[in-house]
């Protein structure tokens, strides 16, 4: 089967479009996640999505919408708990990570008519991207990219030095909450493509791949987006031909790209 034939299928068209949006979005937001050492937070929030999806099903509401609200609240709770307890940030993440998964497991158990595609949510199900999903993904993607663009200088300043940024008049706490919300939304809209368990790789791997090769922040963001988009598209195409799960294929392709980049960088720098 050749490539144009593959594109004749509506589900593949939607999958590829969703892959482009999700790949670009997570890579752009992921630059801040990587530079601020928030990779574990990404994993924590994505696992919280399991609780949100389960709650959505239990309440009979849209699981993705409920997961967005749930993840935003959990990300804020992680930040507030960290501030109140003055513990290192990975401690509240570790607690909420397990707690939200446990919450999801209990809620799933309460659902009487069990027809939830659990495996699809955990590892992604590209076939499940409907037209409505694509419209929602595109709309939220545009809003998030607009926020990334509008607050470019503020996020960069906070990432470089949050103290100096605060003294310069940037509302650092509010901006942090906004960034957490943006990470949460990006994670939830990526779940259908790569799944809850794998989504944090989309946030981290593109910038980790590019870092070390670029000499300014704009280049980091631009090339991370390129890596994110190409890996998503490449992963979906490969998964189509090899008949492998698309989410896992995207993540393994990203990992391969990251490892190759790291080795080449090591060779280049000696």
């Amino acid at each position, binding site marked *: 089967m050749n490539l144009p034939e593959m594109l004749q299928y509506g589900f593949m068209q939607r999958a590829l479009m969703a892959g482009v949006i999700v790949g670009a979005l997570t890579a752009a937001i992921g630059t801040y996640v990587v530079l601020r050492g928030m990779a574990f937070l990404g994993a924590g929030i994505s696992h919280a999505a399991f609780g949100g999806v389960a709650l959505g099903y239990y309440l009979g509401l849209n699981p993705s919408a409920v997961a967005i609200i749930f993840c935003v609240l959990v990300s804020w709770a992680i930040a507030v708990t960290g501030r109140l307890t003055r513990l290192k940030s990975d401690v509240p993440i570790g607690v909420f990570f397990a707690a939200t998964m446990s919450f999801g497991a209990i809620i799933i158990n309460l659902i009487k008519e069990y027809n939830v595609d659990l495996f699809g949510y955990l590892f992604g199900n590209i076939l499940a991207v409907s037209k409505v999903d694509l419209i929602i993904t595109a709309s939220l993607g545009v809003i998030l990219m607009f926020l990334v663009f509008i607050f*470019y*200088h503020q996020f960069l300043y906070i990432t*470089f030095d949050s103290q*100096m940024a605060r*003294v*310069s008049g940037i509302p650092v706490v509010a901006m942090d909450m906004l960034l957490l919300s943006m990470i949460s939304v990006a994670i939830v809209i990526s779940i259908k493509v790569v799944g809850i368990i794998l989504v944090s790789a989309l946030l981290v791997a593109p910038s980790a791949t590019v870092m070390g090769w670029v*000499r*300014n*922040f704009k280049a980091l963001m631009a090339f991370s987006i390129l890596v994110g988009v190409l890996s998503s598209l490449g992963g979906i195409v490969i998964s189509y031909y090899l008949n492998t799960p698309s989410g896992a294929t995207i993540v393994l392709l990203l990992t391969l790209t990251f490892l190759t980049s790291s080795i080449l960088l090591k060779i280049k720098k000696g």
Partner: protein
Amino acid sequence: MSERVVELKDVWVRFDGISVLEGVNLEVEEGDFMGIVGPNGAGKTTLLRIIVGLIRPDEGYVRVFGREPWKLGELRSLVGYIPQRHEAERFFPITVYEVVALGRIHRRRWARRLSGDDRRKIEEALREMGMLEHAGKLFGELSGGQQQRVLLARALAQEPRLLILDEPTSGIDQPSQENFYSLLSRLHDMGMTIIMVSHDIGAITDRVTKIACLNRKLYMHGCPADVMKSEKLNRLYGMNVFLLTHEGREERK
């Protein structure tokens, strides 16, 4: 009469019930170059963080340019702050130019591009600090002394009237320290008000016009020559203090 830039009256700060600052009074007038010295854990950084509005005191009166520092509003750009040595990640992808451009952020709300005026101020600040030829380099690749000069350029790019520096030369080699202090002296000569914290009394007494000695309480506050002759200096550090000045004089207090 010079304008009072910073004023603290009976300022108390406690962390978890433990006093960090006890009844501190301090005045800094326009054009002053004030050094704040004291041993480690004396509350020096806390004092600076109050002045820049990062911490609110539990008690007391604080004014910077006549306003509470956490309500400075548009006057915030008048305060340039360099916190304790910034350990930049080596691969953090930000150039020297981009770091200095952050100093213009208060004039660049949202995603506005740099204006011609912004670019002029950034280049002026880089030239002033002798870093213009390094503008395209990665910040993380510079030496500690060069990084501090870039951060100073960032502060200057925002056109401040008050510069606040927290241990700006710690971890920097001696020639770079000398170079940095000379830059500060030049800025002071040009009319900049400067407050600088250091645990190294000898290094700053020759540079500053006023000195304050802090160890939770503010022990002394005045001209360096008078303060350095005071017996209270020994009480501040809890031991006899040997003062090494930059002229190579050694004076036992």
